[in-house]
């Protein structure tokens, strides 16, 4: 059954060698060399374009029917190239390209109000084939109202109305009731404990910049905390990540001392700019915790992976810890490592609660009422969807 030895011992003829070399050349030749023989792909067709709605006139939506050579089992198209001109006769310029299998593209490089003509080309190993026709003119225009945001507009107006009503109501003497929030009460307790121990208070206003509303909320609470530390004559340390929150934090602490009637006790070094880098900041704050041993740690703002690093280091020092964040994924870490945690909206309620200002408390009442409206909407929406009625869901879809 073995291969006869003579097959290897026999000298191949010149003709056989030629055939073997030709076959090897065909198999091993680079694809580009062979592609020269492949025909160009069939062109795509049916190019259509339209202005993207509900925008500022910055995009045109284009779609077409794929080339017959770009179908399952027939892969002679590698890319589609989109060309654009301001006149049907050109000059044409490639503005974008998409891979094979795609049938649409949004051109986001257009100028508002300019008329454009488009054509699409299919490219493959065999070359490039232009579409049979061009599409145009098409023009990007801006709209006055984003119609997909009607539902948001309605709820926003409703919310603003509730808040304004309760603020007005509070101004006229009817101060609304706000339930006790143990986490916020604990802030004063923590500062009191630091005072008794003769140690400082560490306040961390999150690690994001001022464009995050959680940082704003954290800084507003800082003013109230600084007022308490000023009253108790307890030093406060505020390490900050970004320069803008840093300058605002300085103003907040200064304002707290001023409002407590002790501006002379304000220490300009109490607010420190550390670094916008997450873990550099953690290293610095961890160092402050371990070296200065503050008796109270207050974390209020947006936190990410550093939440547990900070809270566990603080736990190890034995300090009383109060945290508040609206970052849901970090809440479990704070709940585990801190004595009190403000959950979600409690962070935003803290400044109103601490200040006791009737107008600020009134705004909380407005938020509560809109939540009731949302709950009712969710229940009604669930009912309608269960009955196969989809208009409410569709109305609430936004872009």
């Amino acid at each position, binding site marked *: 059954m073995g291969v006869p030895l003579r097959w290897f011992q026999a000298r191949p003829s010149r003709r056989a060698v030629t055939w073997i070399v030709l076959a090897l050349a065909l198999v091993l030749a680079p694809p580009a060399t062979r592609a020269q023989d492949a025909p160009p792909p069939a062109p795509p067709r049916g190019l259509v374009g339209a202005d993207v709605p509900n925008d500022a006139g910055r995009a045109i939506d284009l779609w077409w029917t794929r080339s017959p050579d770009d179908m399952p089992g027939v892969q002679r198209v590698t890319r589609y190239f989109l060309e654009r001109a301001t006149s049907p006769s050109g000059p044409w310029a490639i503005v974008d390209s998409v891979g094979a299998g795609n049938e649409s593209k949004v051109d986001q490089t257009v100028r508002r109000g300019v008329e454009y003509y488009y054509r699409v080309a299919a490219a493959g190993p065999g070359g490039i084939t232009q579409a049979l026709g061009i599409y145009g003119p098409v023009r990007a225009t801006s709209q006055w109202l984003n119609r997909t945001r009607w539902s948001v507009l309605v709820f926003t107006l409703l919310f603003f109305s509730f808040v304004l009503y309760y603020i007005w109501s509070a101004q006229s003497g009817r101060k609304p009731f706000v339930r006790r929030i143990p986490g916020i009460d604990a802030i004063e307790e923590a500062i009191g404990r630091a005072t008794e121990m003769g140690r400082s208070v560490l306040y961390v206003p999150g690690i994001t910049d001022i464009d995050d509303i959680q940082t704003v909320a954290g800084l507003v609470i800082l003013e109230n905390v600084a007022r308490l530390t000023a009253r108790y004559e307890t030093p406060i340390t505020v390490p900050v990540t970004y*320069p803008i929150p840093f300058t605002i934090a300085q*103003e907040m602490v200064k304002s707290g001392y*001023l409002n407590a009637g002790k501006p002379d006790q304000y220490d300009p*070094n109490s607010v420190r*700019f550390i670094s916008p880098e997450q873990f550099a900041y953690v290293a610095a704050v961890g160092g402050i915790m371990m070296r200065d041993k503050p008796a109270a740690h207050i974390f209020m703002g947006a936190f990410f992976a550093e939440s547990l690093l900070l809270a566990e280091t603080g736990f190890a020092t034995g300090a009383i810890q109060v945290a508040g964040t*609206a970052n849901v994924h970090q809440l479990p870490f704070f709940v585990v490592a801190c004595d009190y945690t403000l959950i979600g909206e409690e962070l935003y309620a803290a400044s*109103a609660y601490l200040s006791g200002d009737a107008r600020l408390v009134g705004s909380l009442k407005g938020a509560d009422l809109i939540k009731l409206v949302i709950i009712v909407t969710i229940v009604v929406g669930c009912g309608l969807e269960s009955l196969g009625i989809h208009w409410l869901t569709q109305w609430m879809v936004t872009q």
Partner: protein
Amino acid sequence: MKRELPLFLTAVIGLFMILSFFVPHQWVSVPADFLQVSAIIVVAFGYVLGGANVLRVNIDAIYKRIPGWPFKLVLIVGLVATLTIGAIEGPGFLNPGTRSKWIYNQLYSPMQATMFALLAFFIASAAFRAFRIRTVEAGLLAVAALLVMLGRVPVGNVVTQWLTGSLHGVIPEGLWNAIQIGSIQDWIMNVPQNAAKRAILIGAAFGVMATGLRVILGIERSYLSGED
């Protein structure tokens, strides 16, 4: 005037930015984009103030020889050296082969990774405390955590399939699938966990709006400093 002008500007710009969410027209979107981009200029000035604060606080500490002052000396040397090298190397300071790139790759990245790596140990110690069953709620938390952890590793599925193997074909297929640990952890994550998370998010979103409105209306004005 010192307080009225900032309050007026905050109200006008705040309302304008809210308007830009609903009105995409160029008369609104272009100025809104410009305002957002302009913030970068303010931030650049802020970094100068921040840098000055770092130098002042730490040089003061070194001068007074407070405990741990050598660390502050390292910080100042590191800050000045990085800044100087970056300034000398110019715009391409992070190109391959530059000294700044070397500092980034050989010093900064390993130190950052070291800090991040500590998280694993902190999670272990925090989890140990969290899962001590002292109350009914803590018990529920521990059971839910155990189910989710087991359901997310292959061995958990293997164990439940082995335990319930004799029931396969005896009870309905849907019921058999539902008692697999993978399905249980999916349910915990998708139903109770998601419901609680969304409730917190909805509440927080309205808290965001309420805070924004308070600032825009000038009711929340502590950020302006000065006496109330």
